[in-house]
């Protein structure tokens, strides 16, 4: 079946511009996650969606970052007034949510490479 898709695959923007990154999760996955991977750094959690709500936004680095999810499916991560330190690969993942307290595995998309010049 289709995996997680993300668009665009690459985005180059000028400092101060706004950008929108899109994630299309695996069909049927109610949980959706955004992570950021900077050069030489591990993956860093940004935000978690359960359906259309985001009960955990603890990883968003500043109020310039926001995300939404509509129809329990597609999600958009928006970065306003981009800065050079925002340059990174932004990864989206999705998973099932079970009734147990154990986490399911997350399936990742190919990522969007953001370069802020």
């Amino acid at each position, binding site marked *: 079946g289709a995996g997680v898709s993300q668009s665009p695959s690459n985005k180059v923007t000028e400092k101060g511009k706004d950008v929108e990154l899109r994630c299309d999760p695996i069909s049927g996955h109610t949980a959706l996650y955004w992570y950021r991977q900077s050069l030489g750094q591990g993956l860093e959690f940004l935000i978690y969606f*359960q359906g259309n709500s985001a009960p955990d936004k603890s990883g968003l680095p500043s109020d310039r970052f926001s995300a939404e999810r509509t129809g329990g499916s597609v999600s958009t991560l928006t970065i306003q007034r981009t800065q050079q330190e925002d340059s990174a690969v932004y990864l989206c993942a999705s998973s099932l949510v079970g009734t147990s307290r154990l986490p399911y595995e*997350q399936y990742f998309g*190919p990522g969007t490479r953001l370069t802020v010049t």
Partner: protein
Amino acid sequence: EDQVTQSPEALRLQEGESSSLNCSYTVSGLRGLFWYRQDPGKGPEFLFTLYSAGEEKEKERLKATLTKKESFLHITAPKPEDSATYLCAVPPGGATNKLIFGTGTLLAVQP
């Protein structure tokens, strides 16, 4: 503080030379440990989930094991196509909705 540490940072093997990658973790109440493989320019690819100490999972040349403090990814008779970065991750204490990742082990298998 919840933490995941992987070693070595990089490993170079000859084809057929078996070895192990280490993932040590500090988290209260482990609720699972995940192994991923990441190829350059791609997102992480899920390999294994281990939920309790003593558990083992195998897939082709890979075998993952878990103790109360660490996990090992054993690679038996590796091939060049096993070259990738291997990542491990755990949910932070009390959480199931996010993962803390190690910085990975970059594995290069030479023919």
